[in-house]
């Protein structure tokens, strides 16, 4: 089926098989490999994208469901090497190690801070409950979110 949607602010038109997940569609057809497949079952959060600004798991959606919608992947956050404040915060606070969860973490941060520019640690924990990270122990991710909030407010 032909679908039309906004991807990182640009209109996109593409052919999507009706049974293909948004995750496979983005990775295999549009070659957006920043969206990661950690489980394909909705359990890990590595495939997080923003759908109309809200974090969703792209492995649980079908590509055809985004027809007419607005999708953001991490590519939508920065141009070239001009990092978005959230990305800058993740660099400075070491909010990543292997990096496999990182695109999902950064997009979740964006959704959180768009809604709540001054989150408490508890707010952060709730927002990231579905995003697993096996490497960092989460502390530096929380610190990255807090720093990002500060950077954005400046």
């Amino acid at each position: 089926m032909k679908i039309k949607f906004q991807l990182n602010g640009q209109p996109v038109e593409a052919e999507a098989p009706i049974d293909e997940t948004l995750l496979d569609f983005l990775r295999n057809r549009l070659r957006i490999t920043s969206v990661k497949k950690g489980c394909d079952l909705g359990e890990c959060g590595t495939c997080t994208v923003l759908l109309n600004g809200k974090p969703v798991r792209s492995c649980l959606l079908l590509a055809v469901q985004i027809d007419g919608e607005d999708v953001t992947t991490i590519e939508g956050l920065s141009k070239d090497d001009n990092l978005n404040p959230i990305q800058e915060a993740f660099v400075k606070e070491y909010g990543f190690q292997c990096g496999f969860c990182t695109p999902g973490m950064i997009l979740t941060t964006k959704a959180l801070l768009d809604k709540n520019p001054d989150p408490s640690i508890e707010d952060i924990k709730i927002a990231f409950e579905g995003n697993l990270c096996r490497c960092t122990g989460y502390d530096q991710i929380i610190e990255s979110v807090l720093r990002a909030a500060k950077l954005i407010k400046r």
Partner: protein
Amino acid sequence: MYQDYLGEVKKLLHGKDYKVVGKNVIRVDAIEKVTGRAKYTTDFIIENALIVRAVRSPYPHALIKKINKKPAFKIPGVVAVIIGDDIPGENQCGYYLDDQPLIATDKVRYIGDIVALVVAKDKESAWAGADAVEVKYEELPAVFDPKEALKGDFKIHNRKSPGDVKVIKGDVEQAFKECDVIVENIYKPGSQDHAYLETEAAIAIPEAQDGILVISTNQGPFRTRNAVARVLGKPQSQVRVITPYIGGGFGGKDTYGPIISSLAAVAAEITRQPAMIVHTRYDSFVYHFKRCPFEIRFKSGATKDGKLKAIEVDYLCDCGGYAAHVIGLLKRAAYHSTGVYEIPNCNVQGIAVYTNNLPVAAFNGFGNPQMLFAVESQMDLLAEKLNIDPVEFRLKNALVPGSRTGTNQLLDHSVGIKELISKVAKKADWVKKRSKQKRWQSETKKRGIGIGCSWHGCGTTGFKHDWAGASVILNPDGSVTYSTGIVEIGQGTITSHAMMVAETLGIPYEWVKVELNDTSRMPDSGETHAQRGAFIGGTAAVDAALKLRKKLNKLASEILKCDEDEITIEDGIAYSLNDASKKISFNDLVREMYQRGISPAEYGFIKARRGYPDPDTGQGDPYAAYTFGCTIAEVEIDIETGEVNVLRLYPGVAAGKILQPDVVRGQINGCAMLGLGYSLTEVVERENGKMVNPSFTDYLIPTIMDKPEIAEFISVEDEYKYSGYGAKGVGEIAFIATPLAVANAVYDAIGVRFYDLPISAEKVYFALKRK
């Protein structure tokens, strides 16, 4: 041959403070990782790559009577069906021992053993093809309990055990007679899944001149290359392995990397087309090898003045159907079985036993978390009997410079454990909490505090070789090209290498570029495991950089007409310490090198400074140096549900020079959480050796909600002089200490001791009911 690298570097820097080492820099991989550009194996999308699906045994132990490929070919899209006999080279993928065919031919030894590969144009055909292949088995009696396997009439291989280990020192029998207290127990620390977020995957692509390129999730590019060369029957020079970013390894991809790479390579070689194999999360849980379960009988004794006298330890490692990584972890466990203490009499005997369980992998700690769980539980039990505070008891016995280990290795320097224990205890306010805690008890919640101490030899265990290479090339514009075979699995090591190269050359860190990990253009650095990435890999980097630095100093002294000893290079300027007006920029200096025909490239190559313990007595020097860890945990137990809530962790390490403080903190906190999972929630449930809870819903790794407060880590910088900048490894140590501290804290809280891991809420609940 073993250089005092620390001394040499300090001399070159004329005793000045480091400019790069020990600072927090922007990681080499940072920008790529936060922009999503970092490429992992499956991000290399190869047009028209064939998809490989393994046909796996549904039986834990069976003879393969017949394999019928034909039905698979009825599925359009199936290109090839490969069985063991089709393998072009040797059908063998064992890690230490040649006991594991890549594709089983005569029998299968665990549920999931591979009997064929189906190669197809698309995923659907590959999966359907794999279901269609007909395999006739004749079931054999299977065994899942290692003790039964040892006793009973089971023939999984032509011998029951792939290996054993002994550490024999002093006179244990006599020593126990002189002990005032003796404690003896059986411990059963269980399995654990690595559960890295990136599953195992490999892509193989035929290349020019009959070569083959493999891109895969591995932790040992050269071991992977050699494994692939072996199954393909090709010279190693014809196999090239690219190891891109890895989405977490923790040892698991050290074991499974060469295997999955070989599967893709065989498919690509036979079809002469690119081929890829990717594990689903289910595959990863059910088929990739995991932490080895142990059963340990541990007897220890001390005199009433609180001195440890003797240990007697027997243990079994259930290695599953093939030896894989078991021999290394079996030995490592024995060589660390005294814990961080001086014990003059030891009789330690360990044996690995084949069963029909899933085989075992390297996993953070490599046998040590299992053994030290027993050691540290025993320490608390002894302390209680002796009526000595557990911290005090540990301090009385802790290793100090000049101590000898259970393997009789003399530790002459870099032994910071005693200072570390004191500092961590102080930070955690141990004395106060340990007594006051007793009084803080509500009706439903009980609190406790516990300590765990760990040590971990850096580098591989002394029964196989341990070397590492690195290369540094100075470019005419002053930029530097650095190559290492150490893999970036998240731990940040390649950044440490770049920092050490920059510091040694006297240039800004940003001038050093770390090359893509490709075996065709970098030196063999061994595997990225055993806390050796910075320790041994990094020393090779320093070795190469030092050679260049000496040349640069000499050249600068000639140009500036001064003594070589006066030359220093800082921030990319070489100058005389006696007359700062005599100076030349780094790039001019390098250009001059080129013009004078002085080679601007150097290769560093080093070997770990250690020996090979005697196989009969285990006496010798199995590791070059040891990193020490100490963690204190505070827990709160809900006595109605049995749930153990870890409130606070106080970690500490004595890991030599800390190269990147914030990265080390990340390692420590990450390890602590991995350790928390092993302590409390990560239960690998098995039926007939097969994992039956293969999802993140049923296998519970810690989420952000489970995160306790983790205090800023304590570091005792007990520098090791034979490594670059005095660093030791740090990747595993904090993991090991966590479960030990948690288990001891649980006992402190409720007075129930658990002799197996993990300590699930269910276990606590029933234990409290029984009480």
